[in-house]
């Protein structure tokens, strides 16, 4: 039944008596409740459950990704420190090799130098000895000839100084 605003109050009062008041629920209640329960069941089963599963799965994926990231960062840091360690080891090894080579080279140079100087002094001594020996060998001979030479010289000086130059030639 239709009502106007002016008639509404009267109809409301009438409805309370007659049972057609639109504020009093009727059989529609049960049909609405049934429709709602069907929708409720479908949403609980086919919407909220899968959506919650999706949300959980997504959270799991996010946690997994964060964990993977952390692991990767850890591995990266480990590789980095291993690389640094390796590099430091190689550096120290290289410097020790260099030092060793340097000291070896120096000792070799020293050895050669000592050898050479020994040889030089040896040669000098030999040469000295040779000279001395030759000197000594020549000395008596020269000493012997000194007398005759002196006599000859003295003769020439005494015989004539003018012809002495020619004699000296």
């Amino acid at each position, binding site marked *: 039944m239709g009502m106007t605003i002016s008639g509404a109050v009267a109809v409301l009062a009438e409805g309370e008596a007659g049972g057609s008041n639109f504020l009093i629920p009727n*059989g*529609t*209640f*049960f*049909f609405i*409740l049934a429709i709602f329960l069907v929708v409720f069941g479908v*949403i609980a089963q086919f919407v*909220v459950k899968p959506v919650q599963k999706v949300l959980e799965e997504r959270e799991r*994926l996010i946690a997994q990704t964060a964990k993977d990231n952390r692991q990767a960062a850890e591995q990266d840091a480990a590789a980095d420190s291993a690389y640094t360690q390796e590099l430091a080891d190689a550096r120290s090894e290289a410097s020790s090799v260099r030092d060793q080579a340097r000291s070896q080279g120096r000792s070799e140079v020293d050895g050669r130098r000592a050898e050479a100087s020994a040889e030089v002094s040896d040669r000098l001594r030999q040469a000295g000895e040779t000279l001395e020996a030759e000197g000594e060998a020549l000395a008596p001979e020269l000493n012997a000839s000194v007398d005759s030479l002196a006599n000859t010289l003295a003769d020439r000086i005494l015989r004539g100084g003018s012809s002495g130059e020619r004699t000296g030639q």
Partner: protein
Amino acid sequence: MSMIPAEAAIEVGHHTTATWLGMTVNTDTIYSTLVAGAVTLILAFILRAKVTSTGVPGGVQLFWEAITIQMRGQIQSSMGLSLAPFVLPLSVTLFVFILVANWISVLPVQYTNADGQTAEFLKPPASDINFVLALALFVFICYHAAGFKKRGVLGYPKKVAKGHVAFLAPINIVEEIAKPISLSLRLFGNIFAGVIMVGLIALLPTYIMWAPNAIWKTFDLFVGLIQAFIFSLLTILYFSQATESEEQHH
């Protein structure tokens, strides 16, 4: 009625009725509810068919996810997640079902019936007291059942009456009775008022009627959203009040 011109007549709470299973039923409300339920179910089955956790979620899935996350947050902040397996689907269903039911009336399908009265082709079901009572009483029974389950047959009524302070027992009992009434009539009043507004606007001359009608329908969208949200939020709050622990003081 004869004092008022035919075109100025406004229907208040008129329903087309029939007798089903020996009961008087408002067929217009039931048809609108069926449409709302069908839209909700279609959205549900689209999600069911396309739901994905690793791919890119579609619009329907984002819609359901947003509501589920929002409701789960509300439940978590007010009562913890112990009752969530029941309350979460209930609040999600109430929100979407009431939202769709309210937004049905945004379709500007109005006609003038034989009596010269403006009627809407699809009335919002919440403008029928049966719709709001069915939902509110279902919620009422469910949260009291949850309370009885948590506190026992004798402990729960005692807790409800006593509340936090014993001398406020009469007020607590009145409050408990008021809960389903306010829950249902708040929704009913808002949506029913929207229907009356449409009827009033229909009294304007046709050349100007479209403007307030468009403005009102837009505002009605907002009202419908807010009312759907309030209904589901209060459902969660009533559940949390019925099942709260002794040590929780608000």
